[in-house]
Each structure stands twice: as structure tokens, then as C-alpha cells.
């Protein structure tokens, strides 16, 4: 389906998005039910272990899915053979959702850390690099708001996403490279032997599935917003240029069509043809 078809208000919303949204809701409800009422308390952590069914899946979505997809999309945008505004929009959608998940990673981590470590925050390598990641991707979102030609904005943002993504492996390996307060990986550890068992493991796995579904649904909706926003922005520009042209303020002719290679979603700007000095 083309961007133009997707952008049209009467364009049917993909049915898989609705199914995905329903599946995400059901799986989240099941995770909460299992996490809060079915699984037993941990021998060491007691009831605090219940936060583990939420915090690592949220971090998984933020770090690996959201920012990974943003980096991959940015790379595909920068590569000439696959260059398309589709990748730019996908990266933008993924980063915004990722920033929400990244902030939640920090918030749920703090709520677990306060009773476990005795502090809300410590300048631990894992925590600090995760906070830095949030700041870097907030910078990406700020950069997207700087007015520019869609192609220029897409190129700038793709580079920014790749620069920011460098922090992701630092976050991942921080618990190995440095002596940190944060515990190491429970499931994806170096021996690939999970140190969690029974109903706890299944609940954690369901948490990962549930939040992955939530992420995919959110990116789907956010992508459509990006397409629609580009289209309305282009239309506003077109109308205002046409008005100014009619008033005789501009040497830019109004757009004659929506051919490919023009601005975002059909904006067509002819270069000014000034006569005389």
C-alpha cells in the first residue's frame, strides 16, 4: 500500500493492527494477572520479584526493538539503493515509542531499586548509560522538529539515530565491562542457561511477548500519524504558497501535480525563476 493510500482518511486501517492491539491487551492482562496473583514470591526478593515481570520486558522493547529498528531503518534510509521516506518515518515512529519505553525502564527500575538497593538513583554504569540513551533519543526527536526539507531532515535524523545507537551496546555490556550494582542478565546470560524457573520464567516470557505486541501496535499507529502529518504539512504549505503567489509576493509557481520526486506526499515546488537583478 502506498503512502498516499495510507494517508487517506478513508484508507482502511490494516486489519492486522486491530488484531495485534487486541492480542496486546489480552497478553498484558494475562501478564499482570500471573505476575501479581499467580506466581509465588521470591525467596530472596520477596514480592519485589513481581516488578521483574515488567521491568526487563520494557527495557527489551526500548533498547533492542525500538532503538534497534530505528538504527536499522536509518541505515536503510542512508543506503542509496533502499532510500525511501518510508524508512525515515519508521525510524521516527520507532524512536518516539522507544523514548516512552526508555523512560519507563528508568521509572520501573527506580521503583525496584529503592527497596532493594536503598536508593532511588545511583551513578551506576547501567543506569547512567540508560539515562544517556534517553537524552540522546530525546535529541533525535528535537532534531525532527527543526524545520527543513523532508529529505534533509531525514538524512540528519538518520545520522543522529545511528550516533545515538552506539550507546545501546554500551548499556548492554555495561554490567560485564564495569563492576556495577545492577545485576547481570538472568535469561540471556553468557552460559545461555536461564537462572529463573517454573511459573516465574513463563510469566517473564509472556511479559516479553506482551510488550513486544504493544510495541508493534504502537509503531503501526505512530507510522500512520507520521504519514498523515507529512501530508497535512505539505498541504498547508501548498495552500499558503498558492495564496502568496496569488497576491504576487512570490516568484514560485503553484504546484501542478503530485508526481513522484516532489516534496513530502506530493508537494511540488518549482525553483524561483527571477527575472532581472
Amino acid at each position, binding site marked *: 500500500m502506498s503512502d498516499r493510500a495510507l494517508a487517506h482518511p478513508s484508507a482502511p486501517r490494516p486489519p492486522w493492527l486491530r488484531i495485534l492491539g487486541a492480542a496486546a491487551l489480552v497478553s498484558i492482562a494475562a501478564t499482570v494477572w500471573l505476575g501479581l496473583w499467580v506466581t509465588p514470591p521470591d525467596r530472596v526478593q520477596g514480592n519485589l520479584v*513481581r516488578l521483574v515481570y515488567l521491568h526487563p520486558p520494557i527495557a527489551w522493547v526500548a533498547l533492542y526493538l525500538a532503538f534497534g529498528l530505528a538504527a536499522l531503518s536509518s541505515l536503510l534510509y542512508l543506503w542509496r539503493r533502499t532510500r525511501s521516506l518510508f524508512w525515515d518515518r519508521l525510524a521516527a515512529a520507532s524512536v518516539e515509542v522507544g523514548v516512552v519505553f526508555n523512560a519507563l525502564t528508568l521509572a520501573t527500575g527506580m521503583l525496584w531499586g*529503592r527497596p532493594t538497593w536503598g536508593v532511588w538513583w545511583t551513578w551506576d554504569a547501567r543506569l547512567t548509560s540508560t539515562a544517556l540513551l534517553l537524552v540522546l533519543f530525546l535529541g533525535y526527536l528535537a532534531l525532527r522538529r527543526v524545520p527543513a526539507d523532508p529529505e534533509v531532515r531525514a538524512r540528519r535524523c538518520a545520522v543522529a539515530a545511528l550516533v545515538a545507537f552506539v550507546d545501546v551496546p554500551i548499556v548492554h555490556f555495561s554490567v560485564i565491562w564495569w563492576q556495577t550494582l545492577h545485576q547481570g542478565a538472568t535469561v540471556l546470560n553468557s552460559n545461555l542457561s536461564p537462572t529463573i524457573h517454573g511459573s516465574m520464567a513463563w510469566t517473564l516470557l509472556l511479559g516479553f511477548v506482551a510488550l513486544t505486541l504493544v510495541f508493534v501496535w504502537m509503531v503501526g499507529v505512530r507510522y500512520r500519524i507520521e504519514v498523515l502529518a507529512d501530508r497535512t504539512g505539505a498541504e*498547508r504549505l501548498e495552500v499558503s504558497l498558492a495564496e502568496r503567489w496569488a497576491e504576487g509576493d512570490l516568484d514560485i509557481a503553484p504546484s501542478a501535480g503530485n508526481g513522484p520526486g516532489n516534496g513530502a506526499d506530493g508537494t511540488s515546488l518549482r525553483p524561483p525563476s527571477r527575472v532581472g537583478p
Partner: protein
Amino acid sequence: MSYVDAGYATGLSVLFLYAVGLVIRRRSLERAVELSSPPSDSAERETGAASGP
């Protein structure tokens, strides 16, 4: 309220509010596009001429 309750309340309510915000943004943009669509566009749609890449 325990730390566990606070964690679940924070996580789920932020995700819920963000999801609602996304749906509202999408609907308002769809309305804006619908209002700004020229009449020829809807005629094209009826004939299926606008479905090309």
C-alpha cells in the same frame, strides 16, 4: 501502596495514556486530511485511480 503496586500502576498507566494519545492524534489528523482533501481526490478514490504507488 507498595513499590510493586506503584511499578505496575506507573508502567501500565503511562502505556495506556500514550496509546490513547496516539489514537487521538491519528483521528484528528485523519479529520484534517479529510477536510483539506480536494473534491477531485474523492472522485479519484471512487474510481480507484488513486491506488497506484
